[in-house]
């Protein structure tokens, strides 16, 4: 069981991610009403939010150092924040501003940071091989840093998943593969796409540990990740963790979610991991209601500051589009 400070820190990470994303829901719709226009408003393009999936990021990243490399997906905010990526620069990138992580060239699916080491890919499954490479580099350099590859259950059906797990196991690399099973690949339910119930079972195919976390519980994630991270750090090789988590929102903002019912969505909201976790922390005396309220308030202030920074930052000079093709 993690100590109280860790329990509280995981709570704080989940809350700040949730507030960041709930704020983005509103920001994203600015200028997009009454008729939805994906190109309009301060934040154009697709917007994939991770509300509901925070326990995975919080539980895994609690074990990481800034020099550990994290690769994420098209839905990367919770992991970026939990790994310590600067919220202001991240918000500015999402707003396409000069002060953003990529000076406005990447956008919300392409967030890159050197320290903390973080990257993502908008192509399902294709961020996983990069994590293998980070771990390979660490091994060659004699560093005990590790790599974490986050991906969804849809990605587990991509060839890149298989190639990456085989390579990491073959070469004994320090990678923790974390599958966030939110049950939906856009509109296709997992049971219509995957022949087996649990992707963690696939670990057996590579001779590595596979752990299933069935209930979106940050403490269970923390404990499984602790073992996997320790194993990776001591050079004993990769692990696969699968967490059954919940995507509270659509695949992207504007998704009418015709593929699932209002009752199904309400059911997910009823078991919201943050509220459930908060109640547990209150019950066990780790975090009082007042303390929880303080966390929410301070995270709200942090998010407001980040969004204000993004809004007030200058846009990049248009001709800067031609820079940074080559180093």
């Amino acid at each position: 069981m993690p100590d109280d400070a860790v329990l509280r820190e995981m709570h704080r990470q989940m809350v700040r991610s949730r507030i960041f994303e709930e704020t983005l829901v509103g920001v994203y719709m600015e200028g997009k009403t009454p008729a939805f226009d994906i190109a309009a408003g301060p934040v154009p393009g697709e917007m994939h939010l991770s509300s509901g999936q925070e326990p995975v990021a919080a539980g895994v990243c609690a074990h990481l150092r800034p020099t550990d490399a994290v690769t994420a997906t098209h839905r990367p905010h919770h992991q970026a924040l939990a790994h310590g990526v600067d919220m202001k620069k991240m918000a500015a990138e999402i707003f396409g501003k000069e002060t953003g992580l990529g000076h406005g060239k990447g956008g919300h699916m392409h967030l890159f940071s050197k320290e903390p080491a973080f990257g993502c890919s908008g192509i399902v499954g294709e961020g996983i091989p990069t994590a293998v490479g980070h771990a390979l580099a660490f091994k060659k350099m004699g560093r005990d840093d590790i790599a974490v590859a986050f991906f969804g259950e849809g990605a587990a059906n991509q060839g890149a998943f298989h190639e990456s797990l085989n390579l990491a196991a073959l070469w004994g690399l320090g990678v923790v593969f974390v599958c966030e099973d939110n049950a939906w690949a856009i509109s296709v339910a997992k049971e219509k796409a995957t022949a087996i119930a649990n992707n963690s079972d696939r670990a057996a195919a590579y001779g590595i540990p596979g752990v299933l976390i069935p209930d979106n519980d940050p403490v269970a994630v923390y404990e499984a990740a602790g073992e996997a991270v320790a194993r990776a750090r001591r050079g004993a090789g990769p692990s696969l963790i699968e967490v059954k988590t919940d995507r509270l929102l659509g695949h992207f903002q504007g998704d009418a979610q015709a593929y699932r019912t209002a009752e199904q969505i309400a059911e997910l909201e009823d078991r919201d991991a943050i509220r459930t976790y908060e109640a547990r922390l209150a019950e066990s005396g780790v975090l009082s209601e007042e303390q929880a309220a303080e966390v929410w308030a301070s995270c709200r202030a942090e998010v407001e500051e980040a969004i204000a920074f993004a809004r007030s930052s200058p846009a990049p000079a248009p001709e800067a589009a031609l820079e940074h093709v080559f180093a």
Partner: protein
Amino acid sequence: MTTATTERLLTTSRAIAEAIGQEIERDEHVFVMGEDIGIYGGIFGATEGLLAKYGPERIMDTPISETGFIGAAVGAAVSGMRPIAELMFVDFFGVCMDQIYNHMAKIHYESGGNVTVPMVLTTAIGGGYGDAAQHSQTLYGTFAHLPGMKIVVPSTPYDAKGLMISAIRDDSPVLYFFHKGVMGLGWMTPNPRATGPVPEEPYTVPIGKADVKRQGTDVTIVTISLMVHRALDAADALAARGVEAEVIDLRSLVPLDREAIAESVRKTRRLLVVDEDYRSFGVSAEVMAVAVEEAFDYLDAPPARLAYPDVPVPYSRPLEQFCLPNADTIAAAAGALVGR
């Protein structure tokens, strides 16, 4: 050259392997990954002898997992290594293109320059030896079209070594194409131009600089890779007929040495582009566009091109040879441009 007798001659494949070995010795971050690049020495010899010298940590045979190991090279490069990954045949890009053009080529740009991907991706191109549609293509144009990758395609042992060293030291991803026919392999049709003088000490050839392989005044032949050899043979034949062809070896496609093309065309006033890649929407059209944009007023004749027809590479010898430009067809096309 007075030192001709002391010049050391190497095949292109040995020049490449020597360059990689010297960089491995110079920089502890350099290593090679690929299929059969270890004890086999690379199917086309680009890593021959390196495993025995530098061991399996620096010379890593991989499973047949191009997405996996090219993606791993990308990650390793981002984390500070300088990997060289080999895609055995360029024709295999279909199984791993996402790692190449969506990751290797874009991460530096997407990061606004904060993250670099200093890696080299080597791959074999070219036909002419009956390997048919999936093992014979010359697809550098496909990659040159996509931003974010430097593209080099040496034709001589000297350029091959210098460009490899430049590619390894470059902080951007570099695609290094070697034509099987320029490697000087014992199991390919003998090609005297695939062996040449190569200094022992490390040296660089600049990426993005073309090279005038033969001076001439009557017609410019712009080409690259094995077609440089064919164009030089054609130029010899043309000289016997009193036509002096200038042969420009582009050596790099990205960045393209536009000035070298324009300068030669302004001098000779006639342009023939020779390309083993497919004819349409590719390198030959790009070079002609440069001539039109930069030297239109100097042209005495419309630019012409000889390129691979827009058909998959056929197997049967007469079919394949019909499709490939050769010294005779190049000489005929260049001669037609000057009316001789």
